[in-house]
């Protein structure tokens, strides 16, 4: 089943074409990688999928629903979670609160029921707390649940972001350079985590990464962007041998 289908995505920023007619189809359960040199448009693509930018051309279908033009918060509500290239945590909130905020999209309690402490609010609060604790446990941050988020180490912060993204029970998870700045053992743990959450939550994962080893190991399918265009797509082996990909990375004619 197709979870995400992008067709002809084109984006421009003040005359600069950041993305040019990009097509992408992600199937359910896949771990799909997007690679490419810096400035290729990978994060822009993420931002378009999550509704932060509206493409000037192209369509976005998520689980067979048209998503173009939907504001970011509604996109989240439809089941797309994400992490950010430059970590965006709620620094002065506790670790547990960071994850609890992540659940916002799937709860229904509104201002009045929160203010008056109605049963709906109280029940949801319990569920939210429970789920947050479970997620923290899963990423190994339970002991630090009451710390301020900006007190965590870099690797811990990345894991926290993932936990927060999972709190909204996403169908599709977008990870933007999740391994950046990690050492080998942390990366190994990250790989385990990605496999684990895919199984546990029946997730489809879309991944932007620069670490080729990690990408080749974990992704079933890879798309390569360069100067806003998709220049190749296929299995890791196919991509490894693709001439266009090699020349774009090395800058030589292969």
């Amino acid at each position, binding site marked *: 089943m197709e979870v995400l289908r992008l067709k002809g995505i084109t984006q421009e920023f003040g005359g600069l074409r950041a993305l040019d007619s990009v097509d992408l189809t992600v199937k359910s359960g896949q771990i799909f990688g997007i690679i490419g040199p810096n400035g290729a448009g990978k994060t822009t693509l993420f931002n378009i999928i999550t509704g932060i930018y509206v493409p000037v051309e192209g369509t976005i279908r998520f689980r067979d629903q048209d998503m173009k033009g939907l*504001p970011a918060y509604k996109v989240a509500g439809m089941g797309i979670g994400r992490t950010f290239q430059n970590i965006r945590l709620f620094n002065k*909130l506790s670790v547990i609160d960071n994850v609890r*905020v992540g659940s916002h999209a799937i709860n229904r309690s509104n201002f009045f029921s929160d203010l008056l402490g109605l049963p709906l609010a109280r029940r949801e609060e319990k569920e939210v707390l429970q789920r947050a604790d479970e997620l923290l446990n899963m990423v190994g941050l339970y002991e630090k649940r009451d710390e301020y988020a900006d007190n965590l180490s870099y690797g811990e912060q990345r894991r926290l972001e993932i936990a927060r993204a999972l709190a909204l029970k996403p169908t599709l998870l977008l990870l933007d350079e999740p391994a950046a700045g990690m050492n080998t053992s942390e990366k190994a743990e990250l790989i385990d985590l990605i496999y684990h959450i895919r199984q546990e939550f029946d997730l489809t994962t879309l991944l932007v990464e620069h670490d080729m080893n990690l990408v080749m190991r974990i992704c079933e399918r890879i798309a390569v962007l360069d100067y806003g265009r998709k220049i190749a797509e296929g299995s890791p082996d196919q991509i490894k041998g693709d001439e266009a990909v090699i020349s774009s990375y090395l800058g030589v004619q292969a």
Partner: protein
Amino acid sequence: MDAFLTQYIDAYYLRIIILIGINIILALGLNLITGVTGQLSMGHAGFMSIGAYTAAILTMQYGFPFWAALLAGACLAAFFGFLIGIPTLRLEGDYLAMVTIGFAEIIRVFFLNFEPGGKAVGLYGMPQYTTFAIVWIIVIVVILLNVRLLDSRTGRALYAIRENEIAAEAAGINTTGLKVLAFTVGAFLGGLGGGLYAHYMSYIAPQDFGFMKSIEILNMVVLGGMGSIPGTILGTIILTIAPEMLRIVADYRLLFYGGLLVILMIFRPNGLLGDVRIYDIKKRWFKKEGE
């Protein structure tokens, strides 16, 4: 009740306590907008004046009962808070701050020219409906509601907007909608405080609600620690009492005040109680018991 109290407390101190109560209501409203949600609002006195004038005119010229006039004033102020919130869709930070200043100035000029409001002379003769009991019952209710709100889904979402708006959106938070909500509720409290103020001082005029007033309230929020309820309360108490205590050096009071702001920002920008929230206090309290 006030008569009863004045037997035990000097009327002067009673007055200060009542003013503290009114200021706490005002400050908690601003705290919601600026401290919790991170939207710098420097025109809070505008909301206060709307509440004050509306309530005063309704009681004096239309014979409304006090509670109805208060409510009407607060609701009208909330409406304007709603209006101010709408531009937040496109504006942030400094620009939003300027809009709030502009708004408060326009309101002030409006009341300067508003016939039923007495124009520059203002309104006087409001019956002193505001009593110690009324103020402090309202204060306690407002505090409790704030505490509950801030430890809930909505409250966390507001904090999230302050911390990182883009990440908040990615978590499903309708940031614009909640910012408007924060302004609306904050303005409601501002108007409520204004109505209480008008019926305590028995005299209001446009210059009572100028830019300096907005800054005074902002300082109460900032001094104590933005986003923190105990912090805001502490800041309000200190900054309501201090001018009274410094009456001796009244002329130099503002000089101290200005200097204090600068020094505070340099040495303790997070305010006295930093980011302390009721949640943190509860946690620390329970920890102590466990040890």
